[in-house]
């Protein structure tokens, strides 16, 4: 437990950030960007 304490604290922090992101509907923003072809990514500008 002591060995992994920093990692566990980071995981709790990460979970908190994810929850805040979900409350702010950020997964929806990720989805809306990802379901359309990203012209910049594929090199079409």
């Amino acid at each position, binding site marked *: 437990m002591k060995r992994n304490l920093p990692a566990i604290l980071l995981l709790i922090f990460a979970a908190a950030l994810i929850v805040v992101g979900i409350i702010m509907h950020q997964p929806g923003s990720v989805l809306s960007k*990802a379901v359309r072809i990203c012209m910049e*990514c594929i090199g079409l500008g």
Partner: protein
Amino acid sequence: MDRKKRRTGIQAAAALIQNANIKGFFTGKIYDGATKSVCVPGLNCYSCPGAVGSCPIGSLQSFLSGIKFRFPYYVAGLLIFFGALAGRAVCGFLCPFGFIQDLLFMIPFYKKNRFKIDRYLRYLKYLVLLLLVIILPMTFNLTPFFCKYVCPEGTLSGLMLAAADKTLRAQLGPLFNWKFILLLITIVTSLIVYRPFCKYICPLGAVYGLFNRTAIYRMTLDKDKCIRCGKCEKACRMNVDPSKTPNSMECIRCGECVDTCPSKALYLGIKKRP
């Protein structure tokens, strides 16, 4: 099964799971299901016809380059989550682009994995992360600089889409040519140097490297057992010396040093050394 084969198997399975939309490779249409609201751990462009998840670096940039700034809580949370669990083991086991480079390095060709400027070139990925992923997209809105001007993963996706879609093929221009040259350089260099993109350019590797010391899955060195023979350093293709820095930011946790160590001084795992 030995560690090398097991890792290759995990890498293949991870690449397949993250690109499970096989139909897309033939139709040239990208997947638009709900799973794309989740970022995958590795570098896997969301415009790859097979992708069923989102690229964390692409998603991060889309938040940072928005006209109205929004802190990317969700994407940052996922990056920290993957990093705290596995650090750069993500690069070694779960990243499809890392897997491609591993396969390329297996091809018999002239190899030169150790050279003088290697240690300086490694800092480039931190510059790429700061400049192309964070600062420039925040300064010049709506331009994901890393994806647009560098990412060879995206170019590979573009090639696959263009191969299946005549309309896209007709639109390929100077930007694509630039990115195609970068992709070719990455491919040719990967035949000679082990994982050049991961070592010198990848901003995702730069992020996960920060977690290597604290991640749950990490390495321990028993200094009493270490006989300082240098075999681990010679075995490491990421040019790390595990006897000095077992949790170096460059280590992708392939575990070859662990297998090479004659005194079993190195241990890689999630629990305390047995």
